């Protein structure tokens, strides 16, 4: 299975996409990789950071880099979530058509390829759950009819960790649907200087962004991801990490079985993003926190940054020392 993957081509495609995004988003290679990982794993992603760190630009650039059918842009929608947003605003609604004397369904912004759900925690739980349902099922049920969403459907939700007043924090069950939560972070000092110097040009780039990858190519990559080889020891370490989160008394709610499966999907995708046909220990190390942290409920905030890293460390120390002879 592993042998059938064309790593050359995959790497080339991914490089093209990454390179293209990097013309706009500077110094965020790792985050870009994560976003692509989630994309290739057929998952969705939650970006969390302060305003003005480039979350929206990131989503936009990604959407615009991918070409839809007939070299058109793919369908990219952005929704600013607010407390008064209604599910209908997302899904669409039946409206009365005078000419046909009938109700017709007007599709909402959800019917797209890439959806940017800005500040998702500001919308009411009702809206959130409506969104999350279609994220999980890839379909929308409206009355008696079920509408399938696009085959290529990728949600980038963002949320703002400061200014928590008037927000509806996502419940654990819904957070579980996001494959990864990425803390975007500021660019480092040198990169920031570069951004300030060239912001005119970057703006220009954003408008004239190239469509470098075909949607079908993305779908192909998604298929290839499933063929990435996972060694027994990697399976075991995923199992260990998941179990450790459940056993740890500092964690109230541990990782679910679904999160383990998602973790594996992400590992496979991440390996491919890095041009490999097999998962290595560093993949586990890189991804574990981003995949698992937002799913866990901790006993108190102070231990939050210590418990999971401790678990991952133990597993990494085990893997690094491991001598596997085939």
């Amino acid at each position, binding site marked *: 299975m592993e042998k059938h993957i064309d790593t050359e081509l995959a790497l080339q495609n991914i490089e093209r996409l990454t390179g293209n995004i990097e013309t706009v988003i500077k110094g965020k290679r790792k985050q870009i990789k994560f976003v692509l990982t989630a994309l290739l794993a057929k998952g969705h992603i939650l970006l969390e950071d302060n305003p003005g760190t480039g979350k929206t630009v990131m989503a936009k650039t990604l959407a615009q880099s991918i070409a839809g059918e007939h070299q058109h842009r793919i369908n990219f929608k952005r929704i600013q979530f607010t407390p008064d947003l209604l599910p209908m605003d997302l899904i669409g609604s039946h409206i009365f058509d005078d000419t046909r004397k009938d109700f017709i369904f007007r599709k909402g912004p959800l019917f797209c390829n890439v959806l940017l759900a800005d500040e998702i925690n500001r919308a009411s739980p009702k809206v959130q759950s409506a969104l999350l349902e279609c994220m999980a099922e890839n379909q929308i049920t409206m009355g008696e009819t079920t509408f399938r969403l696009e085959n290529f459907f990728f949600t980038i939700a963002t949320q703002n960790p400061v200014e928590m007043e008037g927000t509806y924090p996502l419940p654990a069950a819904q957070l579980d649907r996001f494959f990864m939560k990425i803390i975007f972070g500021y660019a480092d000092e040198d990169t920031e200087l570069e951004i300030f110097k060239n912001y005119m040009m970057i703006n220009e780039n954003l408008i004239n962004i190239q469509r470098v990858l075909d949607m079908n190519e993305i779908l192909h990559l998604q298929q290839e991801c499933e063929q990435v080889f996972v060694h027994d020891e990697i399976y075991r370490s995923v199992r260990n990490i998941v179990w450790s989160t459940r056993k740890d008394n500092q964690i109230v709610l541990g990782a679910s079985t679904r999160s383990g499966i998602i973790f594996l999907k992400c590992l496979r995708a991440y390996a491919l993003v890095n041009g490999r046909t*097999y998962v290595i*220990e*560093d993949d586990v190390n890189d991804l574990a*926190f981003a995949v698992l942290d937002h799913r866990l409920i901790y006993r108190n905030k102070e231990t939050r940054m210590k418990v999971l*890293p401790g678990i991952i460390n*133990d597993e990494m120390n085990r893997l690094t020392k*491991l*001598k*596997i002879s085939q």
Partner: protein
Amino acid sequence: MKIEKIHRPKILVSQLLLLIIPAIVAGVYMLWFINRYYSVLSDKWVAQTVFLSAGLIIACILYNYRFRFSSTFLPLLLLLFIIWKVINITFTGEFSGFYAAAGFYLFSGLFLAGWLVGFGFARFRYFPVLLSILLLAVQIVVVSKTTDISTQKLVYAFAPVLFFCIYMIYIAEVIRNMNEDDPAIGWFISKKLLGFFLVTSIMLWLIFSSFKKEFNAIEKEYGGSATKKERDQESLTKENKDGSISNRKEMGMAGGRGSTKRLVFIAKLDNYFPGTENPNPLYFTYDYFTKFDTLTQTLETDSLMPSNDLFQPDPSSIPLYFTKEDSSVLVKAKGLLLRKVVTAEVYKSLLSPTEYLAPSTAFFCQPITVEKEYQQQFKSAYRAKMYVSDLNSAYFIYNPAGNQQLEDFQQQRFSQLRKVNSWENEDTQFMRYYTYIPSGDAFDSIRLLAQQIAHDSVFAVDKIIGIRNYFLSKDENGLPLFKYSDNPGIPGLPSASKLNYFLFENHKGYCAYFAGATLFLLRALGLPSRVATGFLTVDRSEKNKAWYWFYEDQAHAWVQVYFPGYGWIDFDTTVPSTEQQQSPAPDGTPPINVQSAYFVANGIVTMVDTLNRRVNMIVKKLIYHDRVFDLREGIRTELDVSLATISKDTGTVQLKDLSTGNEITALSFSETLKDIQLDSSGSQGLLQKIPTPVPIDEIKIIPIKKEHGEKKEILQTKHHLSLTKLLFAGLFLLGLFIIILFAAPWLVFQLYRMKTTLTKNSITKAYWSFSTAFYLLNQLGYNRENSSALQFANNDIDPYFNTSLAAFINVYHKTKYSSIGLTNQEEIFIQTFYFSFEKSVCGKVPRGAYFSKFLNFYTTFNYFIQPKNLRHGEAY
């Protein structure tokens, strides 16, 4: 930058539990050990430990909470100084003042030592190494000062200390690397501890088992006495494995008399008062204590004593009826006036066959047989001859109540000895040796007492009687001033301070105390004297004249004083025990009527025929009808052993146990030999007249054993040997330990490197190359700390060293986690990677730095025990 929390309670607790408590235990062990040998400390090791641990714990807590050293230590010193001043003021000049001050010195010293150690533990990373070296050095000194060495004792002395040192170094480092915030800290530590105990016990076991030979060598050179006769402190005699008793070197010096009344030996002593038929009992001497060791504060036997007149053969190594003589002791005994040769026959029951006891001055030993019917009771026997002074007697100083004849003799002897009052013509070295008394307060008071006792005596004998009378004197209440007690309340060997305690305060002791005190009183008066140990002879022989029975509780110590012309004269100043019961009266019959053998042959067995019960032997020495023939070339002869009893050591054995090559002594009491005379002409025809095979009644197999004399020669240099040898052994161990410690990084590296070189399989080779590369980097100070191997290679190593480590790790990961095989290119890369990597890394590191880094075993420790804490959850 790492900002550490000021309060680290978990670290503190683990330091207290894992470092300080073991340190206290080690302290208790050392203090207890030292207390056993240094009476100055007066056995208060519990109190001493409390002070030491107080210092340790307080300092550890204080300095873990970041108190400054100077601002705490200086006030402490000031406080101690004030206390010292106060003590000096309150107890001015009194005896108690001295004791209070001495106690204060001791305890403040211990407290400060504990304080400094606690400070070191809390603050300095390398302190445990320093402390280990110090501890080992101290232990070497302590062990070298103690007198008896055996493998077991060496192991007991060194193994705990060595173990503790390794433990300390390891655990200090583990605690240092502990993560205060890790909730699983207890598990982390227990894991490390478990592993440590396993590894160290295996290592120590290996070390000690591989050096057992060395230890045994030391022990052997030390006289070989220590293992066989392990001393137990409270009994005079020691039971051997076979149940027999060996006299201890310190007999009479170490403890109370044996409490049981078992028969040790009996003796027939042909010594009578001049011109009468009244038996004159004599003390049976085993050893002399002549030298006072100021370091251990004890009296010691010293084979280097001037005019060594101690004859110590091993009777079991002499063939039956053959003799061993040492006439040199007669010259060395120096006294020739009123001397005569006396014979004694000693039948041993509990006493070991190797032991030899006789009244001084013995010079002759001849093993003899025990009659068959007595062989159950008496294992072996010998005949001894000694040159005995007429003035000596076990009756000598105590008045046998109501025996006018004895009293008269006593007075005659005293007047005889009053003729001697000048030692001026004696050898100065001899005099100096036997009148040596150390200086110091303790001995000044003894000197003073001696002057008081002897102030109106003119003659030496009267001075001795004065000392005896002092011990017998009554106090103001009319009660005896001194009492005999087997349990004077101060265990162990009587040392100088104990003697002081005995003389001036307690007034209770056993023979060794009286003898020891008398010795110093005599020496203070300038009389050459020594302590003799052996057996007290009690005459209870109404039935069998001149036969004496010796029971365990007759083990004794007394004093000998040298009188020019008369030699060493026994004096006993031990007061009679009020509660002592009479030993049971001798109930057995002595094994008299010893038939003398007509034929005694000593030689080597050449053939044993168990079927016909015949033995062929080559006779080397022959005694026939009391005539001794020394047959150099040997005569082959056949023995008829059908009636013979064969014995070895103390037990009877079967004929099949006799084998070719054994040295035996064959005896015949056969009447057929009674009238056959031998002509001494020509050795070949010597045995022609004797019927062959010779009927033999008894065969004794001589055990293969070293000459006792050789042992003694080694014993002479024992003190030098023990110290240097021990020092060497200790230093050797210490050196080995240090070398292993410092060589460890390099050795581990070589091990890794060897693995890498030798492995051919690409997959395993990749693993070993990876491990070796990271070990090397770690040892050179490039620790990956918070990054994974790949990140570390990418971000730090490759840019700096210009290597391709990251590429290698990628390939390595492929071998580890992928299902597809390697390409040819990758195979070659793995095969060649490590050495090119090592070359470029070592090329960048200066030689000196490389060398010094490889001596740092801490880095190696860290490599194996420090878990990596990778960064997570930060902004990417």
